[in-house]
Each structure stands twice: as C-alpha cells, then as structure tokens.
C-alpha cells in the first residue's frame, strides 16, 4: 500500500516535471494536471494511510479512524487546481489564437519582433 501510493506520487511528479519543461502549451498544461494529481495523492497520505476506516472519531469504541483533515485539504486543493487549470486553458487558447502558435517561449518571439523593426 505505502509502496503503491509512494511510487504513484513519484511517477506522477516525474511525468509532470518532464512535461512542464516542454516548449509547447499543451504538454505543459498536461504536466501541471499531472502535478496536481500527484500533490492531491500526496496530501491524502499526509494523514497516514489507513484502509477501511471512516474519517470519524467514534466515542464508543477503539475503532480505527482515518484523519479527516487531509481529506478536506484535498477537496480544497482539487477545487482550486481544477479552476486554475480551466483558467490556464483559456489563457493559453487566447495566446494561441493571438500568436498563432502555442509555443511558450517568449524571448525568441521578442527578438524576432525587435529585428523586424
């Protein structure tokens, strides 16, 4: 279980970091999405991994429970990263239609414009 979660976080992060270093907007967006999945999974495990337990303290017995706070944090993080990804897609679409390319790099473009003047 621990190994599975840890390697999932690691692989997702590695893939995400690889993708956000690309020069095109689309892989970068995918990379950020992967990174946000990785961090959500990671946040889940910060309250220790417990299987088959409710996130509720039970006053009547020594039943195992899982920490509810990371679940609330993950929910917040999911909502925020979902919204942010939507904004990012819109801005990159805007940039794509304005610039007629989805390249991220600014300097080459700037320099070209400088030369044209």
């Amino acid at each position, binding site marked *: 279980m621990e190994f599975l979660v840890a390697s999932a976080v690691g692989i997702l992060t590695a893939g995400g970091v690889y993708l956000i270093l690309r020069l095109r907007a689309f892989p970068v967006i995918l990379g*950020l999405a992967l990174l946000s999945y990785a961090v959500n999974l990671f946040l889940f495990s910060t309250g220790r991994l417990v299987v088959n337990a409710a996130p509720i303290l039970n006053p009547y017995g020594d039943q195992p429970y899982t920490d509810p*706070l*990371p679940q609330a944090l993950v929910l917040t993080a999911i909502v925020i990263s979902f919204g*942010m990804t939507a904004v990012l897609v819109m801005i990159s679409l805007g940039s794509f239609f304005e610039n007629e390319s989805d390249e991220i790099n600014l300097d080459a473009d700037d320099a070209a414009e400088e030369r044209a003047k």
Partner: protein
Amino acid sequence: MHWIIAPVILPAMLAPIIAYVMRHDITLARVVSFAGVLGLLGLAIGLFVMASGGETFVYRLGDWPAPFGIVLVLDRLSALMVFLTAILALVVLYHVVATGWDKRGRHFHALYQFQLMGIVGAFLTGDAFNLFVFFEVLLIASYGLMIHAGGKIRLKAGLQYVVMNLAGSTLFLFALGTLYASTGTLNIADMAVKIAQVPVEDAALVRVAGILLLFVFAVKAALFPMQFWLPATYSNAPAPVAALFAIMTKVGTYAILRIHTIAFGPEAGAIGDMVTAWLVPMAALTLAVGAVGVFGAKRLELLIAYAVIGSMGTMMLAVAAMTPATASAAIYYMLNSTLAAAALFLFADLYLSRRDEDGRLILAAPLSQNGLFAAAFFAAGIAMVGMPPFSGFLGKLLILEALSDGPHITLAFSAILIGSLVMILGFVRAGSILFWKSVTVSPDPDAEAAPPLTLSQGAGMGALVALLVALTLFAGPIYDVGAAAADQLFFPQGYIEAVLAPHGEG
C-alpha cells in the same frame, strides 16, 4: 471584534456585484470600486490604530478554538501591510481611472477587488493552508489583470506567468503536506509550538518542509533562482497593474517574515539557523541579478522590473539576518521600495503612452514636457536605487547599519554597495538616453504631437512621490512603527499565546 475580517469581506462582496451588476456601466463600476478602496483604506487605518497598542488580536472564524478552526491574526506587522496595500490600491486605482486603462478590457474593477481581497487576506491569516487559499485568490485575479487589454506578447507572457505560479502552488501544497505530516498542524502558532518540540533526530522532514516553504515564498518574492518570471511579467503587464504588483512581491517577503520567524526562527531548536544560511546567498545573488539587469535592460519597463528584483535582494539580506534590528530596517525599506516601484511603473505608463518606440531605450524626439518627465523619473529613480535625499537612501543606510554587527557583514555590504552603484549607473544611462540625449533629436514635423500631461493624469504618480517625500521627512516616526512591528514579530510567545488562548473574546 468582527472588524478584522472586514477588509477581506468588503472586496469579496464588491467584486461579484461589480462583475455581474455593473459590467456594462463603467462609471458605476468606477464609483463603487473607488468607494470600496476608500472603505478598505478606512478599515486599514482603523485596524492600524487598533494594532498599534501592541496587542495581538485574533479573529476565530465560526468561533472554533485555534488549532482546529481558521484564525485571522492582526498584529502591528499585518496591520501595517494592510495599510500599505490600501494606500497603494487607492493611488493605482485613481491612476487607472484617470488614464482610462480600465476601459481597454473587461472586468478590470471586479478583478481589482478580488486581487485586493487576496492580498489583504494573505496578510491577515494565521493559518498556513488558508494562506495558500488567499495566495490562489490573489493569483487568479492577477492572471486576469496581467492580461488585461490583451495583445500578443502580453498574452504569451501571461501564459508563462500562470504556468510558473501553478507550479509554485503545487510546490506550496507539497510543502504544506510535508509540514502537516511531520507536525500535525497547519495553524502557524501551533506549528511554532510543535516545531520547537521536534527532537533533533526527527527534524529532517520538518527541515525539508521549511525549505520547501521558503522556496515557495521565494517564487512570490522573486528571489534567485526563482526571479526569472518577474521581468517578463512586470514589463509586459499593463503598467498600472505592474504598479499594484509591487505589493505582491512583498506578500512573499511578509510570508517569510511571518512563518520563518515564528515557526522556523532561531528559537525553533532543531531547525536553528537553516533559514539564514539559505536566504543570505539567495538574497545577495538576487541583488546581483537585479543590478546587472538594470544595467543591461533594453526597455524602460524591463529596467524597472529588474530594479524591483534588486530591491527585493536588498530587503531580503536584511530579512535573512533575522534580528529585530534588521527586520525593522527591512520593513522601512519595504515601504519605500513598494512606493518607489509603483511610482516608476506609473511614470512608465504616463511617459511611454506618449511615445511610440515601445519603451525601448533609444533616442527619440523629446516630448514637449521633457523637463517634467525627467524630474518625475529622477525623483522616483533615486528613491528606488537609494540615493540621498530620498527614503531609499535612508532605508539602505538603516539596513547597512543593522547588518554591520552581523556575521554576514562582508557579503552584505559588498552586495548592497556594489549593487547600488551598478543600479545607479543603469538608471543614469536610461535617464540620459531618454531625457538628455533625446534633446538633440529634432521632432518629426509630420508626427502628431503627443497630448500633454494633464494634472489629473499625473496626480497618481505625484501622490506616490509625495508619499516618498513624507516617508523621508517622517522617517523617524515611521521607522519606530516598523521597529515596534519587528519587536512584536520577534516575540513569538505573544502571538502564540494570543492565538492558542483557550477562549478569546471572538
């Protein structure tokens, strides 16, 4: 005691009303936006007076006791920062309305209010996860403001800015997760208590979390090696928006001051001096990058953006030393550098909108009010690089004096002094190209003369210069305010006791 949350609620309520009810009526939106910022200034003054007594006020949301519920904390430092934000917001909003920037795109005023909500919330919160949420609020509004009015390069720079900050947010979440896993709390005061109890052999994870958090805040504060997003963003954003962004780098500084002094400060046992050891070289390199950037910048806005980086480096050298004296100097310098950077960006807006060479530092025919613009650039420029007689000089002097009995004296002195020299040279080069050598260029007879600067348009920039003068004239009392805030910051027991008190007045 509900006043503490009022500066967050006010813009949060106004923004949707402006966005949904007044989107077709720019006059109404302006009036309401102005009223909102004036209200924010009133609240900020009220909170400032309230906090100046030295008490730490805690607002518990939903009246849940502290480590379980979210708290907002008002002390001298957060009140001062909210006050600074409100002043800057008012001046920048005035400038935006006077120059008609808000009509060049949609929803400017709604985004502006959301931006203020996020900044003020980040200054007031006492909970690390809540800090993340307010960071996201201010960032998502800043994305909209950054690409306000559109344009090819601006959209592309905006895309980079968004990607950079989303990666930063992910890192923030990783840091918070690590912190929660190792201390079991996200309340800043509670975290300070728990971290001080961490035994040395278990401290590795907490150290990782602390350094991750430091890097996240370094992204916001544009510290080396995370400074590279700032020049492209600030120089391509609408200039008045860049003027407001001058406060956003300070949000990163504030977060380092707050969290890394209270929770990871010198008293945090096992964590010890880790933060200083990382921050000092980062700050010195930031200053070097800023200075070289100012010297080599080809465009006026790029030059100002690098000057902002340089000033962040200077400020961080003082913050990194983590003593009350250096923090007081840093707070004074922060007031100066925020206002000076904003003044420079407003100047750039007024000046460049009257010339057509796209802000590049090349010879072109002078404007009819060449002397006036030169004086404005001179005033804001010397405040920024720290030449007498303005407050930038006093701020640097205070920082140097505070650092003079510290262990990093050689590095700090050489970085600040050499950096200042190179920055002065950069500003001199820009000023002489724009204002002195340009006089030799005869104007194109066919070209239409640029509209002269009217009093109403220049008033925003003028107000900032007047504030800088006031900051210089009243340096003593203002420094005392900063020193009082720093003393309170370096007495974390007061903060911790106030937040974790069993039952407050709520």
